[in-house]
């Protein structure tokens, strides 16, 4: 199992690999979208067509749960989530940078340590938990602002004794939301690392298959993460609830 360099600051531990990964992913998302949306015109160029395809794809997700007016309010949020996660998942499969040996600057002293410098940011559980909890907190705020009375009353429906069940439900949602994405990407990267250690002639074919499968899983999980985020938000602002 590889080690990640960590920095202690104000009593908190920061993971350098995750910080590098998330920064590069965010930069890539911004650059990609800027590149795809230059010179917009009524008769779309090839670049504009790609971006319109992405927007239409995510509009299909948001329109599943919400009516058109509300859906366009959350459309940009859903696109950002989707692009960030799909690029984060894909990046870790394409590029993994590891070094062998001690890194005294970050307090890693074992001479045989395998230090990971670049991997998928979503293969670290802290990133996915942060994403999932931010979405959950946002969903609760939106639900509370829509109707404070209805929000509180919802916890005691249909019966008052169901209150503990509602609390468990609200805690389980972000936990599984985060663990689903993390576990898929983490298991994929660990198996790539294990296959890399083996005899090259034997593990080459499984490696090809697994890298392809990892890319596929990364795309599916990004889509599912976005769908679930929109489901959790729409549950709180649905009119019939």
């Amino acid at each position, binding site marked *: *199992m590889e080690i990640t360099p960590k920095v202690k600051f104000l009593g908190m531990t920061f993971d350098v690999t995750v910080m590098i990964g998330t920064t590069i992913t965010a930069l890539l998302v911004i650059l990609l979208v800027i590149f795809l949306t230059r010179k917009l015109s009524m008769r779309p160029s090839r670049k504009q067509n790609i971006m319109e395809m992405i927007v239409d794809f995510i509009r299909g997700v948001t329109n599943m749960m919400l009516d058109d007016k509300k859906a366009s309010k959350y459309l940009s949020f859903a696109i950002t989530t989707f692009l960030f996660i799909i690029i984060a998942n894909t990046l870790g499969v394409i590029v993994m940078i590891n070094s062998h040996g001690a890194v005294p600057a970050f307090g890693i002293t074992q001479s045989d340590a395998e230090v990971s410098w670049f991997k998928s940011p979503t293969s670290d559980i802290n990133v996915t938990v942060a994403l999932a909890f931010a979405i959950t907190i946002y969903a609760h705020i939106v639900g509370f602002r829509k109707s404070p009375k209805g929000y509180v009353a919802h916890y005691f429906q249909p019966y008052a004794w169901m209150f503990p069940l509602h609390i468990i439900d609200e805690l389980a949602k972000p936990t*599984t939301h985060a*663990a*689903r994405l*993390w*576990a*898929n990407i*983490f*298991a994929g990267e*660990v198996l790539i690392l294990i296959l890399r250690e083996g005899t090259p002639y034997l593990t080459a074919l499984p490696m090809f298959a697994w890298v392809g499968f990892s890319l596929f*899983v990364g795309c*599916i*999980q990004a*889509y*599912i993460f976005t*769908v679930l985020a929109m489901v959790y938000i729409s549950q709180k602002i649905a009119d019939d609830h």
Partner: protein
Amino acid sequence: MSLGILAGGIMIAFGALAAGIGNGVLFSRYLEGIARQPEAQGKLFGQAMIALGLVEALPIISIAFGILVLFGVLG
């Protein structure tokens, strides 16, 4: 340490078992759907893949924690 390896192995094994049952049910129903209505294949494929992602999640969470136990990061 040997107990940790055993625990990790059991977690991964049962994760794979559950995934096998879940995917089996999912895809048997998917194939049934195609057999009844071959023209719905395109629509059903996308839905089946989303369901695959949802089904695959819980076993893979178990596998990820199993890997952490196996490598001695947890427990």
